[in-house]
C-alpha cells in the first residue's frame, strides 16, 4: 500500500476524502448556524438599549466570543482534545472534528449575526412593539426574517472559513481533503495528490459561494 497507488484506488480515496470534507463542513455549518444565531441574538438583545438590556450577560457573551475568536484554530483543536474525547469518545475521524469546528466558527458567525441584527430598521421593531408583539414574535417574525439576506451572506463567509478549518483538522487526523493531501500527497511526495485536493477544495468553496449568493439575492426584496 505504501509503494504503488493505483489510479482507481486514488479516485476512491479522493471521493472518500471529498465526502468527509462535505460531511464535516455541512454538519459543522448547521451547528454554527444555530449557535451563532443564539450568540448573535444574545449580543443584540442584551446590548445597551436592547430588549433584554443586561450589561452582565452581554459582557460574558462578548468575552466568550472574543476569546474563542482570538485562538488560532489549529491550537483550538489541540486545546479541545479532552473535551472532544469526553463528548465524542474519540479524537480521530470527521465526527471528532465537529466540536472544535463549531466552537471555532460559531463566535465568528455570532458577530456577523449581531451586525446583521443591528442593521434591522429600529422603526420596524418599534412598530412591532406598538402592535403588542411578544419578544418571541419580534425575534422570529421580525428580526430574523428582516436580517435574513445578511444572515445568509454571513453563513456563506463562515462556510468558506469552515472548509479551511476542516483541512487544518484533517492534518491532525480528522479525515477529509486536508488529511488526504497531507498524508497521501505531501508526506509521500505525491504532489499531484496535493494539487488535485487543492482544486477540489477551490471548487467546493465556489459551490458554497454560488449557493449563498443565489439564496441571499433570491430572498432580498428590499
Amino acid at each position, binding site marked *: 500500500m505504501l509503494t504503488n497507488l493505483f489510479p482507481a484506488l486514488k479516485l476512491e480515496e479522493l471521493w472518500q476524502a471529498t465526502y468527509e470534507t462535505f460531511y464535516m463542513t455541512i454538519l459543522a455549518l448547521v451547528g454554527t448556524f444555530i449557535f451563532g444565531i443564539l450568540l448573535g441574538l444574545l449580543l443584540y438583545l442584551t446590548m445597551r438599549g436592547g430588549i433584554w438590556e443586561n450589561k452582565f450577560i452581554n459582557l460574558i457573551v462578548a468575552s466568550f466570543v472574543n476569546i474563542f475568536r482570538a485562538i488560532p484554530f489549529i491550537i483550538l483543536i489541540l486545546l479541545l482534545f479532552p473535551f472532544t474525547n469526553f463528548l465524542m469518545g474519540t479524537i480521530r475521524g470527521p465526527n471528532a472534528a465537529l466540536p472544535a469546528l463549531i466552537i471555532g466558527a460559531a463566535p465568528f458567525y455570532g458577530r456577523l449575526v449581531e451586525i446583521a441584527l443591528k442593521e434591522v*430598521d429600529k*422603526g*420596524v421593531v*418599534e*412598530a*412591532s*412593539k*406598538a*402592535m*403588542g*408583539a*411578544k419578544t418571541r*414574535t419580534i425575534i422570529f*417574525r*421580525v428580526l430574523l*426574517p*428582516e436580517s*435574513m439576506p445578511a444572515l445568509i451572506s454571513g453563513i456563506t463567509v463562515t462556510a468558506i472559513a469552515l472548509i479551511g478549518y476542516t483541512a487544518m483538522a484533517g492534518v491532525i487526523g480528522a479525515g477529509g481533503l486536508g488529511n488526504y493531501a497531507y498524508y497521501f500527497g505531501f508526506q509521500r511526495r505525491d504532489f499531484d495528490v496535493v494539487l488535485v485536493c487543492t482544486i477540489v477544495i477551490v471548487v467546493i468553496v465556489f459551490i458554497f459561494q454560488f449557493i449563498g449568493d443565489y439564496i441571499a439575492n433570491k*430572498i432580498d*426584496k*428590499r
Partner: protein
Amino acid sequence: MISIKGLQKIFTFDNKQITAVDQLSLDIQEGEIFGVIGYSGAGKSTFIRLLNRLEEPTEGSIQINNQEITQLNKKDLRIARQDIGMIFQHFNLLWSRTVKDNIAFPLEIAGFPTAEREKRVQELIDLVGLSGKENAYPSQLSGGQKQRVGIARALANKPKLLLCDEATSALDPETTNAILDLLVDINEKLGLTIILITHEMHVIRKICNRVAVMENGRIVEQGDVLDVFLHPQQTVTKKFVEQVMGVADESESIHHLINTYNEGRIIRLHFIGETTNQALISQVAKAYPIDINILQGKITQTQRGAYGTLFVQLKGDSSDMEEAVTFIQKNTSVEVEVIRDAH
C-alpha cells in the same frame, strides 16, 4: 375617552437631565381628530410615544377608555397596545413581507386564524385603496402607498384609537393630501379617534377638530382649530398660523389698498368657519344695488368650514352699502370691519 394628567418624561444622558414632556394634561374626546403641533424638539414625538408606552413615562397618568395605561403590567400592556393603532413617518413596514402579509402581521400577533385573517386583510386593502397591490413588496410601492399599508396595518385589529407620528412628513404635498383625506374618511366611517403630531399647520388646518401647540415639552395653547387660527395667543402659535395664512402683518398692504382704491368703501370680511355662506358675495350683490370688487384676501378650508379674510371694495349709494354691511353682520357669521368709509 383619553385623559392625560401631569404627564412627565425626563431623559437622563451622562448625568444630565432633559425634560422632554413637562406636566402635560390633556383630554381628548371620542371620535375627534386631535392635532399636536410643535417644532422639532418640542417633545411632541416623545408625547405620542408615551401614550402607548413606547417610552415609559417618568410621572403622570394616561387613561384610555377608562384603562390606566401607566399601571399595566407587560402582558396587559401588550394586549392594550393591540387596541391602539400607530402609523409612522417612515412607515416602518417589514420589507420581507408582501403588502398582504404586512397587514396580516398584527392579526398574527393577536392570534387570529388564517381564514379570518385573509378576510380582514382583503377588507382593509379595499378600505385604503390598495386593491391589486396585495402581493407587492414595500420596495415596489410609492411613499403614499406605503403609508396606506401602514394605515391598513394600524387598523387591522379594529382599534378605537389611532396614533399618527408625523405620518405625512415624509410625503410630497399631493400625497399628503390624499393620506389626510383617507384619515378623515376612516375617522368618519369607523368613528376612530385620531391623535396626530406634526410640524405642518396645513395638516392641522385640513383635518383636525382640536389642536394643542407644544413648546419645550408643554402645551402652551389649545382649543378648536378655528379659534386657534383666529386668535392665536402665543408667538409660536402665530408663527404656525402664518405658515398657512401668510404673514399677519397687513398694515402696509391695507395702506396700499386705501391709496389705490380711492372710491367707495373698503371693508374687511373675516370668515370664521361657516360653510352656509359661501355664496356671500353674490348674495349681497344680488340683494343690493352695489358693486363689489374683491381686492385681496386668503380663504382656507378647515374641518369646520372656511377661515380667512377678504378685503372688498363696495361702490354704490351710501345707504345701500350701509344696508349690505348690516345684512352681512346680521345674517352670517362673517365679521365685518370697515377699513375706510366712503367719502
